[in-house]
C-alpha cells in the first residue's frame, strides 16, 4: 500500500515537470528569431513504482509521477549534412558569378568603348593614311589611334592585375576567417564535452557550434563528423581541420601579383605539415580557382591577342616603306597586353608605301587596313574570346540561380525540423499551464482529504 503522501509527491512531480516544460517553451519563444537556434523539447517520462517482484514488500500502487528526462534539441543530422553541401556549392557558384561579372565589366562589349571599336578605329586610321600618305597630320592621327589601342590593351591587363591582387587579399582574409572559426569550434567542442560529461544542458553551445560549422561549410565545403562525446570534428577533403579540441590552421602561399602567378602559383597549405589543402567546394575554393586558373587564363588570352596584333602589324609594316623610302621598322614593341606600345614617334617613319624610294604610294597602309579581316588575326581572336566569355558567364549565372533554389530547399528542410513555430509554442504553453493548474488542484484535493482524516482523529 502506498503512503498517505504519495499522491502529494506525485502531484509535486507534476508541478515541477510542467513548470520546467513551460520554461522550455519560454526559451523556444524567446529564441524564435535567433539564427541557428534549434527548438528544444522537454521529454516527459512517467515514473513507475518499483518493478522488482517481491513477496512481502511488493508495491501495488500506481506510478510515482512524471519527470523531465531530458531537454532534447531537435535537429536532423542528415538534413544538416545536406544543408552543408548545398551551402558549399552555393558559396562556390556565387563567387564564380561575381568573378565573371567583373570580367565582363572589364571587357565592356558589345559597345563603342570596347577593344573592338579601338581596333576598328586603328584600321580606319591606316586606311586614311593609305588615302593620303603625304599628309603628316593623318600620320599623326594614326600614331595617336594606335597608341589608344595599345593603351586599351594595357588597361585591360592592368584591370586583370588589380582583380588578381584584390582577390589574393580576399583569399587571405577568408583564410584568416576559416582559421578563426575553426578555433572557435574547437573551443566550443571543449565546452560541450565538459557540459555533457557533467550532465548539464549544452544545447545553446551546440547551436552556436553548428552555426560556425555551417559557416565553414559555406566557405570551404567542410564536412562535419559527430563524435560520441558530443564533439564535432570538421574535415576538409579528408584532412581534419578541427579534431575535438585541437584546430589546424591554413596559410596562403604563392605569388602576390598576376605576373608572378605562373612561376609561383597561389595555393592553400596546412600550416603544420606544409601539404596542400584540398577544398571540396565553397567560396574559398572558388577564390583559389579564380587565382590559379580563371584570371591567368583570360590574361593569357589577352596577351595572345596583343602578340597577334603586334606580330601581324609589324610583319606588314616591315614589308612597306616610309616617307623617305626606307623599309619600315617595328611598329609595336612588346608582345604582351601589359607591355605593348607604339614604337614609332616620328610620323614620317610610318611605312605607308609599298614601293621602295620616296613616293606617295599608300599601298602598304591599304594592305595594313585589310588586316581587320585576317583569319586568326587580333579582331577575330578577340571576338571569339568575348563570345566564349559570354557563354561561360551565362552558364555560371544559370547554375548559380539553380543552386540558389536548391540551397533554399535544403535550408527550408532544416528550418522545418528545427525552427520554432510560435503557434505550436503557444499551444504547448496552454497545455503545460492547464497541466500545472490540474496538478495544483490535485495537491489541494489531497490536502483537504488529509485534513479530513487528521481532523477526524
Amino acid at each position: 500500500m502506498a503512503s498517505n503522501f504519495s499522491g502529494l509527491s506525485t502531484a509535486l512531480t507534476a508541478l515541477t515537470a510542467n513548470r520546467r516544460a513551460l520554461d522550455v517553451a519560454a526559451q523556444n519563444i524567446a529564441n524564435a528569431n535567433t539564427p541557428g537556434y534549434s527548438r528544444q523539447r522537454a521529454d516527459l517520462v512517467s515514473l513507475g513504482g518499483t518493478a522488482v517482484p517481491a513477496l512481502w514488500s511488493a508495491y501495488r500502487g500506481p506510478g510515482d509521477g512524471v519527470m523531465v528526462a531530458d531537454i532534447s534539441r531537435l535537429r536532423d543530422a542528415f538534413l544538416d549534412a545536406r544543408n552543408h553541401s548545398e551551402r558549399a556549392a552555393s558559396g562556390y557558384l556565387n563567387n564564380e558569378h561575381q568573378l565573371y561579372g567583373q570580367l565582363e565589366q572589364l571587357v565592356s562589349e558589345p559597345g563603342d568603348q570596347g577593344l573592338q571599336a579601338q581596333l576598328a578605329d586603328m584600321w580606319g586610321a591606316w586606311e586614311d593614311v593609305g588615302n593620303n600618305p603625304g599628309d603628316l597630320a593623318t600620320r599623326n592621327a594614326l600614331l595617336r589611334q594606335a597608341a589608344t589601342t595599345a593603351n586599351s590593351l594595357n588597361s585591360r591587363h592592368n584591370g586583370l592585375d588589380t582583380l588578381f591582387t584584390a582577390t589574393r587579399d580576399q583569399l587571405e582574409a577568408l583564410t584568416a576567417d576559416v582559421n578563426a572559426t575553426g578555433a572557435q569550434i574547437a573551443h566550443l567542442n571543449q565546452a560541450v564535452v565538459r557540459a555533457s560529461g557533467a550532465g548539464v544542458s549544452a544545447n545553446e553551445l551546440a547551436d552556436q557550434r553548428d552555426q560556425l560549422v555551417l559557416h565553414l561549410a559555406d566557405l570551404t565545403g567542410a564536412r562535419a563528423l559527430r563524435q560520441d562525446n558530443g564533439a564535432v570534428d570538421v574535415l576538409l577533403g579528408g584532412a581534419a581541420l578541427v579534431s575535438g579540441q585541437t584546430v589546424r590552421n591554413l596559410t596562403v602561399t604563392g605569388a602576390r601579383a598576376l605576373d608572378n602567378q605562373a612561376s609561383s602559383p597561389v595555393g592553400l597549405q596546412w600550416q603544420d605539415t606544409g601539404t596542400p589543402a584540398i577544398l571540396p567546394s565553397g567560396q574559398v575554393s572558388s577564390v583559389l580557382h579564380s587565382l590559379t586558373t580563371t584570371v591567368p587564363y583570360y590574361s593569357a588570352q589577352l596577351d595572345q591577342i596583343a602578340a597577334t596584333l603586334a606580330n601581324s602589324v609589324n610583319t606588314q609594316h616591315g614589308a612597306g616603306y616610309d616617307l623617305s623610302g626606307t623599309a619600315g621598322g617595328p611598329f609595336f614593341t612588346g608582345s604582351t597586353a601589359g607591355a605593348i606600345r607604339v614604337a614609332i614617334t616620328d610620323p614620317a617613319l610610318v611605312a605607308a608605301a609599298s614601293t621602295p624610294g620616296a613616293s606617295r604610294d599608300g599601298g602598304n597602309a591599304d594592305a595594313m587596313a585589310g588586316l581587320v579581316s585576317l583569319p586568326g588575326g587580333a579582331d577575330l581572336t578577340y571576338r571569339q574570346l568575348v563570345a566564349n566569355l559570354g557563354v561561360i558567364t551565362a552558364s555560371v549565372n544559370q547554375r548559380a540561380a539553380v543552386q540558389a533554389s536548391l540551397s533554399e530547399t535544403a535550408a527550408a528542410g532544416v528550418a522545418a525540423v528545427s525552427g520554432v513555430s510560435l503557434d505550436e509554442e503557444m499551444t504547448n504553453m496552454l497545455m503545460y499551464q492547464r497541466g500545472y493548474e490540474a496538478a495544483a488542484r490535485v495537491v489541494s484535493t489531497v490536502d483537504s482529504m488529509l485534513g479530513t482524516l487528521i481532523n477526524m482523529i
Partner: protein
Amino acid sequence: MLTSMRVTERSLADATMRGLQANLNRLGALQEQLSSGRMISRPSDSPTGTIVAMQIRGDLRQLQQYSRNTDDGKGWLNTVDSALTASMELVHRAREQALTGRSTGSSDQTAREALAGEVDRLRESLIGLANTKYLDRPVFGGTTTGSTAFDQNGNYAGDTGQVLRSAGAGIKVRVDSPAASTYGTGPTQLFAVLAQVSTDLRTNPAALGNDLDLIDTASKLLQSQLSDVGARYNQLVQLGQAGTERTDQLRASLSDVEDVDLPKAIMELQLQQVAYQVALGAAARVIQPSLQDFLR
C-alpha cells in the same frame, strides 16, 4: 517549397522574402533594359547575340571607311575630269591654229608668227592643266612626292605609281590618270607635238600636215582617257550607293539584335509591377495573424 508538413513563422517569412526578392530581380532587369534601351548590356545576356552584334559593328565600320574612300575617289576623278575636258578645248584650239597656219601657206610670216605664239601660249596653259592638283598632289603625277607632274619644258617629272581607293570588299578603283596614256610619251607626247607645231609654223609650214595627224592622235588619247575616267566615276557612284543601302540594312539588323522592343518591355514592366504588388499584398496577409491574436 517546404518539404515537410511543419511550417514555422520564420520559414514563412523567409519564403516570402525570397519571392519578393525574385520579383524585384525581374523588375530590376526590365528596368535596366528600358533605361539603357539595349537588350544586350553584357556578353552573358546573349552570347550569340553578342557575336552577331560585334560582327555587324565591324562590318558597319568597314562600310563607313569604304564610303570615305569613295568620296575621296570621286573628288580625284572630278578633278581629273575637269582638267581633261579643259585640256581638250585647248588642244582643239591649237589644232585650229595649226590648220590656219597650213592653209595660209608660206606667204605671211608675221601671221604665222602670231599663230606660233598662240600655240606656245596654249602649250603653256596645257602644261599648267597637266599639273592640276587635288589636295596638294598632282593628279597626273602618279605617286610622286614632287609638286608637279610635268616640268616647264613638258618633260614628265612624276613616277609610275597608281593611286587606288578601296571602294568595296576587294575592289580597288584607280582614281588618277597615268600621264603616259593621257599625254603620250616620246616625240608623240602632246607637248612635244605642240612644240614641234610651233617650230613648224615659224620655219617649216609644209610639215604641218604631219603635225595635224599627231595632234589628232594626242586628242584621241585624251578623249579615251576622259571616257575611262567617266566609267570609273560611275563605278564609284554605284559602289557608293550599294554601300549606303547595305549600311541601312546592317543598322536595322543591329537594332533588331541589340535594341529593346520598347512596347514589349514596357508591357512586361507593368505586368511585373502588378505581380510585385500582389506578392506584397499576399505577404502582408499571410505573415501577420498568429495564435496570439486569439488567446485571451
